[in-house]
């Protein structure tokens, strides 16, 4: 980069960057710091303590909500990623695919629709069909809205991959399944992993749909946290929040590492 375009030399660059990061991360810092506060009243620092972590981990309702969230997220991720992978293969690699662009748009449409509409629609559909199982309802709804998130990185990776590799594999006597297993899948794996990661995070994070479909025994973590706030905040929330930030950081780091490994030749 030439000197005249070095962004670091623009006036006020340092301050602006600082303000940006403070604005972005100050709320998170507050949550993390006060999760270690001994005082029950948020905003009054009296000393360091791990009590709120202990109380959060002992909270049976919280643990149940976490278990529901993780169960739903894992299954929804598996379903959404599989569907997205198949859709990407069919749309990008299929020969003579009619309505290629239309198919892509249909897969991605849920990204553009307001989630509340999807949530209400799911609720109405499930009651029409007479579906009773709360967990199954959550899994079905989450699988559906997670699919486009899983689809985007897989499609991008597949589009960026030269057809030569698959042709070389076929040329070397591999049938379609062997080519997929030994050549296509390993080469697009970083995209599949990113897609799965996104789907998992979107599912874990979802509130609107989960709240709409929540019934006894199927409260997800975000829905439970919301209910805690309605009955007044407790420092326990800070501890839960900090743990969730930590989990997200670990997942994001893992995703980055896989992506970096994938771009190396």
């Amino acid at each position, binding site marked *: 980069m030439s000197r005249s375009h070095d962004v670091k030399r623009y006036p006020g660059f340092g301050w602006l960057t600082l303000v940006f990061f403070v604005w972005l991360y100050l709320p998170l810092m507050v949550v993390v710091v006060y999760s270690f506060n001994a005082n029950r009243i948020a905003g009054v620092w009296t000393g360091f303590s791990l009590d709120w972590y202990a109380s959060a981990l002992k909270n049976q309702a919280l643990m149940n909500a976490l278990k529901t969230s993780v169960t739903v997220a894992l299954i929804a991720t598996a379903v959404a990623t599989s569907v997205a992978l198949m859709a990407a293969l069919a749309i990008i690699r299929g020969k003579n695919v009619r309505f290629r662009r239309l198919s892509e748009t249909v897969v991605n449409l849920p990204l553009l629709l307001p989630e509340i509409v999807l949530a209400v629609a799911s609720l109405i559909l499930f009651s029409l069909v007479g579906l009773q199982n709360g967990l199954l309802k959550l899994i079905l709804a989450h699988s559906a809205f997670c699919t486009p998130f899983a689809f985007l990185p897989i499609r991008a990776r597949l589009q960026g991959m030269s057809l030569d590799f698959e*042709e070389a*594999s*076929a040329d070397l*006597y591999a049938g379609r399944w062997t080519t997929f297993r030994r050549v296509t899948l390993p080469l697009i794996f970083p995209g599949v992993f990113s897609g799965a990661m996104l789907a998992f995070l979107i599912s874990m994070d979802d509130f609107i749909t989960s709240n709409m479909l929540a019934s006894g025994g199927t409260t997800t973590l975000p829905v439970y946290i919301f209910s805690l706030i309605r009955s007044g905040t407790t420092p326990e929330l800070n501890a839960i929040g900090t743990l969730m930030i930590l989990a997200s950081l670990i997942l994001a780091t893992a995703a980055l590492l896989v992506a970096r490994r994938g771009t190396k030749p």
Partner: protein
Amino acid sequence: MDRDKAVEVKSVSKHFGTYQALKSVSFDIGENEFFTMLGPSGCGKTTLLRMLAGFESPDQGSILLHGREVTQIPPHKRRVNTVFQSYALFPHMTLEQNVAYGLENLGWERAKIRARTGEMLERVHMSAMATRKPGQLSGGQRQRVALARALAPEPEILLLDEPLSALDLKLRQAMRDELRNLQRDTGITFVFVTHDQEEALDMSDRIAVLGAGEVQQIGTPAQIYEEPVNRFVADFVGETNFLDVEVLDSREGQATIRTPLGTFGVPATGAAQKGRATLSIRPEKINLGDQAAGGITLAARVVNQNYMGGFTHYTLETGGVTLRASRRNASRQGDLVATGADVTIGFLPGSARVLAS
């Protein structure tokens, strides 16, 4: 069924949308032949190669490999291997794994795969790097591994899609010899695709010149260069001078032609009929000064010259016609002809060629 024919292409046509890539192309490739498909980009040579591999299928016509109809057979069921222009080495596998891949799919025993993989890497001087991945190799090394991978399963036919185009000049020359040797040693039929006429002339037993989706001419390198059948072939392969001429008389392989440079007799192809035609004469066939002896001689003026080291290219004017000639610099400086000088030029009638216009 003909055992001497490795490949038979029969009336193959192919459209891509409204674009006609191949127009009823037919030819045979012999067993153990080094066969080159030569042509400019868009001439259909790569489409034909991809049909032999099974990546494309013809709209009409059929393809036979060793007498067996394969037109509808998928790539993985053809005993044909390809060296891709991009090499297409699997980036997530080591060189060893790349070479072993085809053998595993053919269901070879583990021990045989190990032996064959080692032997092939040895053959292309890449044994020392067997456990590396393709990303760590230079272009020339990738090229050799791609060759080893394609030859390991002992294919009946090896297809090569412009495999030398990504290499630098010196390496390209060395690889030409190596390819030629590999072909002789293995006895496998090589089908080579290139747009580089020098490569084609250097390596091939026979060349098919393709242009505009059709086979223009098939022959040995010398036939293609010395006896082009039409203007396209004469123009695409090598340099040449074209003169508009009129055929006055044509019989028994001899034609009398009237040219802007005078009237004379030349050997003619069947294509030369009475009327307008084109005369092709290659620059190196036109001799200058003391080298011009015998045949047809003319007075000319040197308009321009380009010194190329081993050769000097001259632009000459004679009788209102501009000709290009090249002269071997057999000794130093002394025999250079100055720009603007008058010079005698000459060529043998047999080295000119009458083509249909």
